[in-house]
């Protein structure tokens, strides 16, 4: 009998499910406080609709299936932002700005290396209808607030402006082919190839100096202001650096300037980003906790022209990090476990009902065994207190056990007090 499980998926047991749910609820709380509204999106869509804004690198990784009635190709959700762009463009009345949040799974085929899941969880936000840097800064601020609310402090926000690359392309009049080659070197941070590239393309002087060092331009606001001086002859490039300075100033008002690291060599994975992009890293952890950015042309690929920006957390990466740093509760705490040793169990049902009405989590023992065994089970299973009924002949009283104490109390007193 085959009881295997396919590549790319896994089970989360009770403890893990509880921890992941807590992370998501915590983040959702932060989103709610900033006025974002949750929506639920379908798990699959038409393939050609879903991939409109996605680059080849993602669309090639989608899980495809066929609609049996129409023969149309469908695909499992590979990206939430595309879905929201499609949904928003379908709305008859568009009140702006619109703030959405979502949570759920995305599906992508990844190289079959250990640890690469094909089904991963995201929770994220989209802010539609503003082209101002204030909108980008709001997304960054919410992201930071959400991490702090989870108890994660030592994160850094890597920011870049993808317009930088188009500015270089325009300044040097690259053909599409040359630009593709250039971006390949940028993506892999191949400084040595950028050097050869400049030689081949005849790029000299300040611009050469700038281009071959892009992979190394990581730092604070001083780096950006210094670079602005160095490329002052190239107004398109200066403009993109100016945007970074402006967003830095707004982020500083939020008190987050110490979290910001500029990283001019980061091109981002998706082809739909059009401006400020950012990614969250923590020291000593090899995966990003989340990423986002501005996508002003994506909704236009569906219908209408609306600027937008957004962000998604990688829930499983956050979970792994928090587990590693011991920032997670071990298991869900439950309030009362009731063991009734009497014949008719009437007291147990009554006490349980009253406790639940008061908002406690209550479960009753329904296995025949020695009550000491039941006690052991209850504490191992995460109950804080155990109520034992009928332990002696005093029918008006019960025993309350904690892991360290045993206390006899009259039922009425207990119910009044609790």
């Amino acid at each position, binding site marked *: 009998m085959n009881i295997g499980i396919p590549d790319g998926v896994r089970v989360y047991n009770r403890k893990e499910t509880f921890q992941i749910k807590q992370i998501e609820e915590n983040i959702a709380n932060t989103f709610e406080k900033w006025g974002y509204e949750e929506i639920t999106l379908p798990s699959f869509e038409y393939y050609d609709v879903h991939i409109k804004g996605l680059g080849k690198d993602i669309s090639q990784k989608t899980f495809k299936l066929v609609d049996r009635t129409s023969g149309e190709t469908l695909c499992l959700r590979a990206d939430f932002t595309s879905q929201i762009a499609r949904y928003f463009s379908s709305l008859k009345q568009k009140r702006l700005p619109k703030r959405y949040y979502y949570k759920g799974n995305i599906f992508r085929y990844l*190289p079959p290396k250990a640890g690469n899941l094909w089904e991963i969880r995201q929770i994220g936000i989209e802010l539609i209808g503003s082209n101002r840097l204030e909108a980008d800064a709001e997304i960054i601020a919410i992201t930071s607030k959400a991490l702090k609310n989870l108890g994660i402090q030592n994160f850094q926000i890597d920011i870049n402006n993808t317009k930088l690359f188009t500015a270089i392309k325009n300044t040097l009049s690259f053909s599409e082919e040359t630009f593709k080659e250039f971006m390949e070197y940028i993506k892999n941070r191949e400084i040595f190839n950028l050097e050869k590239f400049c030689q081949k393309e005849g790029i000299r002087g300040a611009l050469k100096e700038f281009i071959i060092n892009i992979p190394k331009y990581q730092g604070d606001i001083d780096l950006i202001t210094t670079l602005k001086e160095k490329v002052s002859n190239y107004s398109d490039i200066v403009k993109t650096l100016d945007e970074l300075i402006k967003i830095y100033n707004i982020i500083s008002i939020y008190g987050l300037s110490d979290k910001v690291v500029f990283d001019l060599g980061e091109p981002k994975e998706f082809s739909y980003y059009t401006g400020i992009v950012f990614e969250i890293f923590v020291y000593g952890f090899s995966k990003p906790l989340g990423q986002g950015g501005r996508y002003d042309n994506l909704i236009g690929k569906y219908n209408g022209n609306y600027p937008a920006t957004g962000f998604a957390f990688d829930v499983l990466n956050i979970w792994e990090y928090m587990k590693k740093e011991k920032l997670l509760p071990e298991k869900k705490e439950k309030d009362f476990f009731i063991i009734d040793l009497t014949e008719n169990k009437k007291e147990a049902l009554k006490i349980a009902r009253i406790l639940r009405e008061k908002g406690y989590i209550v479960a009753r023992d329904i296995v025949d065994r020695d009550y000491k065994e039941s006690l052991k089970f209850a504490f191992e299973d995460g109950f804080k207190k155990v109520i034992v009924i009928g332990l002696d002949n005093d029918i008006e009283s019960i025993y309350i056990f904690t892991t360290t104490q045993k206390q006899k109390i009259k039922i009425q007193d207990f119910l009044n007090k609790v």
Partner: protein
Amino acid sequence: MDKIVAAFPKGRLFEQTIDIFFNSGILPEKIQPQSRKLILETDKFKFLLVRAKDVPTYVEYGVADIGVAGDDVLLESEADVYRPIDLGIGACNIVVAGLPESKKLYESNPTSIRVSTKYPKIAKSFFMEKGIETQIIELYGSIELAPLLGLSDFIVDIVETGRTLKENGLIVIDHIRPSSAKLIVNRASYKTKSKKLNSIFTKIENFLNKKIEVV
């Protein structure tokens, strides 16, 4: 502060890499690989001695911040790592080779060929781009035996001096690409340890540039 963890391939490439680190002023003294120790430490570094093919894995998963790997290994592993510096060591060519009489077959528009190799992905993508259906036979060593015994007409392998080919009566039939060792870096380390790593990059670059000038 934490040490920078470096995964270096065992053998000659290890010594050559250590030479570069020493001559760039990154290491105060050369370190010698001891017989069977897999981890060597200095006050600023932890060096892992691993198999060349495993280096990208250590770096991609972040157990090592940096590593040294040839293009052959990088292309084969498809690892998602940064590769800022060409160290110029471990230089070789990735080639198609075979018996002299197979050259004609290779140049006769074959629609299907058999290739033995340690590099199935490189071989597959090289022939696929040419539109030739290729049956890959994956071997782990002594690739040169394959054409001699008729297992396949061709092999895809790395060639440094060409001596092994020659001694077995094989010739280079086609060039796929040159390969040399790159300094590779984990994505997250690149971002979260940028100050330390950038200073290492600059020192190596300065040293390598000086070397070119002298030559």
